[in-house]
């Protein structure tokens, strides 16, 4: 269960980050650079032109000419991810979310600040 600490914007990971944290092996990010050029220069698969197609920077036809097998794979993956993107919250889940809201009022800290901010007073 997610904890209820006073700072909701920080994850437990951010609050307790340790460099040697014992987590199962995963594919960790390599060092990131902040330019699009670096991102586009990645080698391997999918081919760069396929990455560009998936980013909307190139056409599928162009990608298919260069790397037809990569395009075949990513067309299937895209079909599945797009289907997932159309999912909505199941009605029973929505009902349970509504029912879970506490009867108590929210904490009042900052209410007056908010009112002043909204109405400029």
């Amino acid at each position: 269960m997610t904890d209820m600490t006073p700072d909701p914007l920080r994850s437990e990971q951010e609050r307790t980050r340790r460099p040697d944290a014992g987590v199962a092996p995963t594919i960790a990010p390599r060092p990131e650079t902040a330019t699009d050029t670096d991102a586009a220069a990645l080698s391997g698969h999918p081919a760069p032109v396929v990455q560009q197609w998936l980013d909307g920077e190139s056409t599928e036809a162009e990608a298919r000419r260069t790397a037809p097998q990569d395009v075949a794979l990513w067309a299937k993956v895209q079909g599945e991810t797009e289907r997932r993107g159309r999912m909505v919250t199941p009605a029973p889940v929505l009902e349970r979310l509504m029912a879970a809201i506490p009867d108590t009022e929210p904490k009042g800290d900052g209410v007056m600040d908010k009112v002043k901010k909204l109405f400029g007073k």
Partner: protein
Amino acid sequence: MAVSTTTVPGANLDPSDADQQVITSVLAGDRDAFSVLIHRYSDPLYRHALGMTGSPDVAEDILQQSFIKAYHHLAEVRGRFDAWLFRIVANGCKDWLKNIRRTHVSYEEDDQPSSYATPDEDLDRSELRIDLDRALATLNASLREAFVMKHVEGRSYEEMSDMLGTTVGALKMRVHRAREALHAILEEKYA
């Protein structure tokens, strides 16, 4: 020009202003107005939690805890409510991923039924769903988050940057790395 009035908090307004109106109503004691925010944001948040965890039950639990947390801390919202709420859910997902890995419960051992499988769909697609879930589970949280936001939620890099407070270049890099990792796992079977 006359401004129209309405009984629905936040109707006919810019989304951000509409959220602020609802928040003001809730903070003024109208608890039920919070349901407007749940209706407004549950779908994209549910998709995010499901994409990150792969489990409908876990996604629901994270959403429930996140909405409760948001309700309790509603007075602390600064800036866009939707981005604030998204960060609560995103952090809940990361915490869950961290904890499930720390306790050595693998994704495959979580025997929640797949939310994607339906009986009338063909075997290939069902297999792809399972294989994609397993491949996603190998990604670390930040790569998985970037991939889900880009490909499942259909967000632009600019929108992702606004929501995560990370540069477009860094997010693009994460998505590309995620695709590389997924490609390496899936290519033998699907390329």
